[in-house]
């Protein structure tokens, strides 16, 4: 019988904070490309890789993740043989430096130890990519490594991938060290916070980390252990984005407006599942002018939209203009409003503020439920 793994979807640690959006929900619950949430990507990757036992760790503000993930039926996971569990850290203060991934795993260590699968795949809820974890597991087993982590070569690490880790690898793909990305060079190997290892190795790492320092994260302990353990890197190819800052989030959304880039991430044979809201199709009125955009269902569009991502059930009235922006679900943009380089959060209602204009490298953020 083939080796099997269970999945862990990890939560971003407290050094990562995305301006605005993050005040309302964890990154995994951020809306992405209109109809998805970020967490749909790691869970769909696991589901498509035949991983049907998945633990989702939620560090703070669980409502939106709990609501979205629910029973997990929509992720095509067998309802008897499979299960998605939402797990929480006992340390409820989201700002506490001790409320990190290791403390959440330590709090649930008995559950992890009881899993029947010999291996674990850990993937972040704050990055977007497509990966068959069976390949990662096969590679991990055949190499004989203790830990295999996924990385992506990038050439723009000065500007993006903030708050991410980089790895230094030798020629044999052995990981020498893990560092914070401090933007010192453009060409970097970004650690995708995705690991494959034996369940027992993982349990030992969690124990060691909590014993050494309650501030240690999984990346910290792997960094320390790569001196004495065989830690290898597996290169990911294809689309990759991290959503670890508002700029990264905006950049990723704008990048995917290129249809070829988007179709690389969305393949019919590798579906990205999400929870349906049963909204009806979108109504384009006589006066609508829409180009170069992703539009979700349930919208009513009378105005002009260029190069933007429009969430579900958004209303854009006559004469309103939206450019290079992300408009989230249920926002209403009234007549004559001009929005450019902005991120408008859910349920915002823009009536009187006629000009909301940000910079291409520093998008303007409009709060959830705001009426302007």
């Amino acid at each position, binding site marked *: 019988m083939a080796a099997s793994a269970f999945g862990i979807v990890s939560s971003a640690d407290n050094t990562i904070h995305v301006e605005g959006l993050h005040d309302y929900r964890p990154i995994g619950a951020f809306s992405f490309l209109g109809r998805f949430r970020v967490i749909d990507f790691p869970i769909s990757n696991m589901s498509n890789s035949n991983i049907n036992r998945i633990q989702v760790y939620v560090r703070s503000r669980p409502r939106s993740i709990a609501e979205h993930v629910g029973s997990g039926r929509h992720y095509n996971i067998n309802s008897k043989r499979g299960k998605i569990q939402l797990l929480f850290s006992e340390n409820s203060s989201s700002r506490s430096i001790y409320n990190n991934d290791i403390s959440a795993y330590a709090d649930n260590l008995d559950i992890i130890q009881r899993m029947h699968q010999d291996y674990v795949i850990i993937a972040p809820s704050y990055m977007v990519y497509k990966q068959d974890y069976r390949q990662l597991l096969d590679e991990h087993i055949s190499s004989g490594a203790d830990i295999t982590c996924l990385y992506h070569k990038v050439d723009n690490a000065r500007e993006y991938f903030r708050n991410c880790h980089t790895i230094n690898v030798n020629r044999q793909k052995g990981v020498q060290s893990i560092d914070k990305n401090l933007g010192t060079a453009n060409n970097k190997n970004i650690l995708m916070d995705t690991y494959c290892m034996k369940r027992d190795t993982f349990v030992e790492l969690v124990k060691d980390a909590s014993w050494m320092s309650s501030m240690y994260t999984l990346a910290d302990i792997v960094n320390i252990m790569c001196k004495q353990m065989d830690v290898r890197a597996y290169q990911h190819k294809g689309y990759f984005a991290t959503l670890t800052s508002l700029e990264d989030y905006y950049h990723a959304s704008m990048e995917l407006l290129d249809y070829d880039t988007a179709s690389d991430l969305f393949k019919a044979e590798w579906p990205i599942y999400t929870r349906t809201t*049963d909204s*009806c199709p979108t109504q384009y009125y006589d006066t609508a002018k829409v180009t170069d955009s992703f539009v*979700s269902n349930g919208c009513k569009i009378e105005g002009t939209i260029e190069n933007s991502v429009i969430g579900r059930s958004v209303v854009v009235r006559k004469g309103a203009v939206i450019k290079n922006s992300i408009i989230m679900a249920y926002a209403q943009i009234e007549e004559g409003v001009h929005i450019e380089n902005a991120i408008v959060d859910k349920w915002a209602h823009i009536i009187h503020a006629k000009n909301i204009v940000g910079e291409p490298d520093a998008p303007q953020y409009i709060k959830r439920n705001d009426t302007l």
Partner: protein
Amino acid sequence: MAQNEMLAMILAGGRGSRLKDLTTKVAKPAVYFGGKYRIIDFPLSNCANSGIDVVGVLTQYESVLLNSYVAQDGRWGLDSKDSGVYVLTPREKADEGLDVYRGTADAISQNIDFIDNYDPEYLLILSGDHIYKMNYANMLDFHKENNADATIAVRPVPMKEASRFGIMNTDGNGRIVEFEEKPAKPKSNLASMGIYIFSWKLLRKMLIEDMKNPDSDHDFGKDIIPRMIEDNRGLFAYEFKGYWKDVGTIDSLWESNMDLLDPKNPLNLGDPTWLIYTEDVSTLPQYIGKEAKIKNAYITQGVRVEGQVTNSVLFTGAVVGPNAKVTDSVLMPGVVVEEGATVTRALVAENVRIGKKVKIGDKNSENIELVAKNVKGGTK
């Protein structure tokens, strides 16, 4: 929430042969409508929204796809304990030969055992091929208030068209005194919608009698309803005033889709209190390209538009290529209109590919053109 006071049975056995090639491989209730739905999503969602827990779907013609489609009852939220959508095809029974459903009433008669499992007080009979939103719980209240034996939903039609319908003639209290199928000289304009609530005990008895009657067509409209009137039973007309359409022909299916282009259309599929549920798809949202021009359109997820779309309804995964023009048309799921092609006043069937620079349809045509096969593009 268990109730099962009223069980629903959806008659979904018809072919819908006037829909021509659209129904050569699937039964009419499985035909697509409104960008992302199938026709049968309407009665099923109405049932779910009306608090009905158990729905039997009576299928017969080309039912493989329809059966597997409706069997996934979670789509309509009908998958909790004590609820479900059950496919009921004709089956071989121990003491009789293998019978097809001989008529609408016979389809119910042959499933009395199924209905008895739930021991309902009332039975709701629906048709699987109409587009409308209706709260059957209100109709049941009406049925109970009148202490009726049967309640028939009716809608007013223009008097001059009344001779095309089954017409109910009522007394001043809404009690049905006469039923006339396609009367030459109609006395009323209340057309039957093919939606009935029966008190089950009485109907059960009548169905058993009807099964044995060699002269019967075993049809609700032709046999059961006239018989009830003859017997002086309490039959009441329940008037429905909302949007209702029998999408029986290519033209009416097209027209009904076009109705959705009016932002104030009375069907209002966006009403969050009465959603229509359907199959879930894993696609990108709709992508509107750099050169696209969209005016007056109803478009769903997974669609990609690079060209021009005017007055049209685009279903899941349809693609309109660069410089292609789609006007006054309906593109069903997976249709591809290649570069430079034009499609006018047409209904293009699922997964059909219209080749480069091909011209389909005519803006002055009397009828809507149905395109059910791939059309090869110009060679140059």
